[in-house]
């Protein structure tokens, strides 16, 4: 009987460890994208401002995934011999959007407007990290409620602790 309990305890502890190993080390913080797109080259080396491509960030809830026409705007001419750019061009030729993999995901019960944050002067880096140095985009914030609130507290956001501010 004593042994049985011991087995259960050991099994239980191992289960929890297994779960956390998966959650912490195997979560897709930097998933492989359909195009090997580098923010480092664009935002870092060439210093293209974020909102040149994420055009809705100041005007809408969503920041906007760059439309394919915007990519082709430059890459019709620039680096056309790169195989990755040729991949972009082939999406464009087929008139198909590029199916990017989502990195930052919020559950449906959270209302998060980019607009309010950008207009309040919150730097993109605050949440998305030093994108300019990332060859492949990587998730740097937990996006959990405590994480949101700690910033709301620090910045003394008006009604920043109200349930209804984010859960509408």
């Amino acid at each position: 009987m004593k042994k049985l309990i011991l087995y259960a305890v050991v099994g239980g502890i191992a289960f929890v460890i297994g779960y956390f190993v998966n959650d912490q080390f195997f979560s897709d913080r930097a998933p492989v994208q359909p195009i090997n797109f580098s923010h480092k080259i664009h935002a870092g080396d060439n210093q293209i401002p974020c909102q040149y491509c994420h055009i809705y960030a100041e005007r809408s809830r969503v920041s906007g995934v760059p439309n394919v026409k915007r990519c082709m705007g430059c890459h019709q001419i620039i680096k056309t011999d790169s195989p990755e750019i040729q991949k972009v061009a082939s999406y464009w030729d087929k008139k198909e959007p590029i199916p990017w993999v989502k990195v930052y995901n919020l559950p449906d019960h959270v209302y998060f407007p980019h607009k309010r944050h950008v207009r309040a002067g919150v730097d993109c880096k605050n949440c998305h990290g030093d994108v300019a140095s990332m060859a492949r985009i990587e998730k740097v914030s937990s996006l959990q409620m405590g994480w949101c609130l700690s910033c709301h507290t620090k910045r003394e956001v008006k009604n920043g602790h109200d349930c209804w501010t984010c859960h509408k």
Partner: protein
Amino acid sequence: MKRRDFLKFIGIGGVGAGAGFVLGKVSKPPGAKLIPYLIPPEDIIPGVATWYASVCTLCGAGCGTLVRVMEGRAKKVEGNPGHPINRGGLCALGQSSVQALYNPDRITKPLKRKGPRGSGEYAEITWDEALKTLAANLIELKSKNESEKFHLLTSPLGGTIDRLAGEFVSAFGSSNYSHYGLFQRKNLAFANLSTMGTASIPHYDIENTKYLLSFGADFSSTWVSPVNYSNGYGKMRQGTGERGKLVQVEPRLSLTGANADEWVPAKPGTEALLALAIANTIVEKGLARDASAWRGVLSRYKAKDMASICDVPVERIEAMAVEFARTRPSLAIAGDSVSSYENGISGAIAVNILNQVAGNIGVIGGVMPNGDDLGNGKKIDFGRKISTLISAANADKIKTLIVYGANPVFTTPKAARLEEALSKVPFIASFSSFMDETTAHADIILPAHTSLEDWGDDFPDPGVAAPVASIIQPVVSPVFETKSLGDIFIELARAVGGNVAGKITAPNFAEYLKASWKGLYSRNREMAAGTLGFEDFWNKALQRGGWWGPSRKMTATVSARAGEHLTGAPARFEGEEAQYPFYLIPYAQTAYMDGRGANLPWLQELPDPMTSVVWGTWVEINPKTAASLGLKEGDMVNIESPFGKISAPVYLYPGIRPDTVAVPIGQGHSHYGRYAKGRGANPIEILPYKEDPLSGEAALNSTRVRITRGATGERLVKMEGSTKEFGRGIVQTVSPSEFKRMKKEVV
């Protein structure tokens, strides 16, 4: 520790960790995709809503809407607060119009019949082929000099699209364009034509009245312009002035009746006599304001004689008469419990007389006639009847029939033998985007847009004693390969050629509509005020949802000649009382109306406001009657008239006369999509084929039925558990005297 145990621990640990890892993996949301625009549309910002003003077309009331559109999808429809008809309100049907747009059962492409008629087997064809096929059929008709054998049957269309459809039919050389639908309230319009000289429904100023006597008008749920009246009713009860009183005369308590201060369940078919008895009492007591024309006629309807016929005590009739005449202003409205009988015109005239005697016509808080000041109102043509169509079809006088919007196979009694008549029509085309019962008979289907995708306009009837013109504009691009209704007519005209193409020359319906509004603008100087020319006016009207002017008071002179239509007898019901002991009242249900709402799942799951039943049909029976028949709630019964039989579960309803049963209209579809099909029963099927010879309105309250126990079957699904409080004190009450005392104490 033994080596054996150690290995066991390792094993268990391994399995545990593995299980934990797998759970961690599966509990994570799957990697969502971010799909960008290929080329971003200029006027769309994802995540930001655009609101368009338009008009709800789910019933004839013409409520103004604001539609919330995001990323090119219509997400939510709200009432337009600036629109004079609904002032921001919207009924359940209007709310559900997005479900008509995105309905999974829409006809998405033109179809051509494959199997035998009514089999529902269709093959997809191109628009080009569809238009050519229909045009070829029409051209052949024309070449044989049989233009008159072309019929167009639509729902009661109004405004510019009605004019275009009319132009098409007459240019083709036919005079057979008819409107059909239940609840057109043509009896009311005809009564108004013969008493007040205009074939329209006046504005009933419920808002400002202090005593409202409603003859079965369920104006807070389905009657005529429910959102407008509900709004007025709210103000009448809780507005700034003294609280108005509502008295409802009807055999079955409707939602409106449940709100009334008094319920007068007169015997079905005698309500018109009650109205005349009230009018006569007013005259006899010397309280009449304008009775010169009616003294003689009214003297035949003495309260003491009518009391037993109507099953309403003399004292009550007299009390109502005195209160109706003394309270200023008062208003009587002719709803379905006077106008839905075979002598419905007589009933509606009786109520008009009552209003005139009490001096309620042309006064604020009374009956305010609507002028047709824009010269573009719905013209009710009493000659356009379904019976004309049926007899023409039976006499082989219809070779080609086009149907749009109307669903007569569902809304006409079986006794009319409409389906048999349709089988004699060699070629039927439908412009419907839903496979309703009538469209299922079509040989070819050219699906039109729903109202959220189409252009149009609306001149509400009844108006609000002020000129109102609203614009319907497309709020999203077409979801499927459907076409604008107007464009179908225009392109068909082009394909038919000859003088039809010569008459209808507009490039598309949007242009046709705009040209029509240009004409309206140039004819009405009021519209021009404050605008910089037509384009400016048009853009402003599109933004606001239309154009409306200030209200104007109109009076009407009542013609005594209307008296010739008074029958002075109770309405007849088919079936002998001994065999068929109960009056049958089929009524328009809040959500389904005449059945059009049944394919929208929101409406199916919306509990009926009086019974809380969802997804089905029920029959309302007084608990006393049910006890005498040995029936309890939920029992399946057969409802049998001399013309047929339907079955439905029993709902025990204390708000109905013991000699009456009521069944909601709207369910019992044999087609019309997955949500409507094969659910409940259609009470219209068992009605006699009775149509008013003057107005063409169907008589719904016209048969008796018997109730017999049926086979077990459909379950009664309802939200409410019990109608009793079981001492829980849910509804607290105080007597009026106690209330007055309490009020004094507070003040």
